[in-house]
């Protein structure tokens, strides 16, 4: 009896100490992590819209869309953090669209595409095919833009996803602007 009491007590004390230590560490690091994340978002948004001053997040489905405002609180564009189905899993990327509905930039943030084949999606050649398209364009493989031969799964997946993201942006964010 005495033994099991001691065992429980020791475990409880260790557990409490660990919990307290973690809570303290969390108190110190949590604000830094949050600030990092916000700075990172703002820096990424500035890459697309140099005049961006503040942003608002809205979740559509499971994806986040950022409304970007300039210093006068005027909407200058939308950045979607969206996903495409690639060859090696999901491709995470940012798609920037100005208020006229033109794609002005994209940035792949994470992908599992085969090096040397599917990773053309990260190269300027493929990105230039996409930049400048408007959400009124069809954005369809073989119609107004081509998938890269040899990497049709990766690039075709991207095109499908861009079309879908453009529909969301057009419907939720640009209508009535």
């Amino acid at each position: 009896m005495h033994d099991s009491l001691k065992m429980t007590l020791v475990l409880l004390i260790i557990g409490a100490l660990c919990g307290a230590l973690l809570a303290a560490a969390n108190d110190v690091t949590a604000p830094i992590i949050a600030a990092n994340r916000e700075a990172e978002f703002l820096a990424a948004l500035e890459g697309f819209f140099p005049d961006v001053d503040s942003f608002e997040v809205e979740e559509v489905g499971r994806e986040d869309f950022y409304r970007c405002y300039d210093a006068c609180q005027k909407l200058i564009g939308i950045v979607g953090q969206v996903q495409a189905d690639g060859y090696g899993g999901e491709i995470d990327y940012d798609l920037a669209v100005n208020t006229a509905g033109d794609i002005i930039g994209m940035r792949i943030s994470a992908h599992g595409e085969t090096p040397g084949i599917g990773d053309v999606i990260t190269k300027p050649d493929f990105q230039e095919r996409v930049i400048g398209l408007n959400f009124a364009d069809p954005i369809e493989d073989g119609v107004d833009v081509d998938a890269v031969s040899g990497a049709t799964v990766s690039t075709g997946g991207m095109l499908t996803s861009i079309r879908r993201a453009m529909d969301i942006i057009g419907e939720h964010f640009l209508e009535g602007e």
Partner: protein
Amino acid sequence: MTTLTQEFTKGIVQENPVFRLILGMCPTLAVTGSTLNALGMGVSVIAVLLCSNIVVSAVRNVVPAKVRIPAYIMIIATFVTIVEMLLSAFAPDLFEALGIFIPLIVVNCIILGRAEAFARKNTIGRSVIDALGIGLGYTLSLTLLGVIREVFGAGSILGYPIMGAAFEPMGVLAVAPGAFITLGILLGLFNYLFKRLGIE
């Protein structure tokens, strides 16, 4: 009684966690696609191993033998979470790259193995030396694998291209099969080396 120097070097050579004990293989394969990630993982493991060895050694006369494993697991998990928070706060890129393998340091057999086999029977001083030796052995092994895979798989080292424009990277080394095959061949090479050096 082994000297402190022996205690330190055993982790790098005779008891090298990767090439001799074949422990902690998951991160060894998973994060060695680039040198930087391999180094980052190694340093994280050193930090956790050092802290857990110190604490386990310090409480070795207090914790009843029957409940020592859950106690050690709690201690290790605490330090792993702290490392996770620090990386997330001060090295967010590395944190993203190492991903799930940071929380999984908890179940890295090396850490619990050293607590069980060494720290609970030895003084704090010796446990520190042991943690540094084993941790350094692990980091060196990971880095070696990372350098080989990055140089031949991507033609760069720590992100800087070194192989010249004519070099066609061997993409397979950067992906999963390359990890297994490189480690398998290295293991064979080290077996040969250890045999020649007469270390059994």
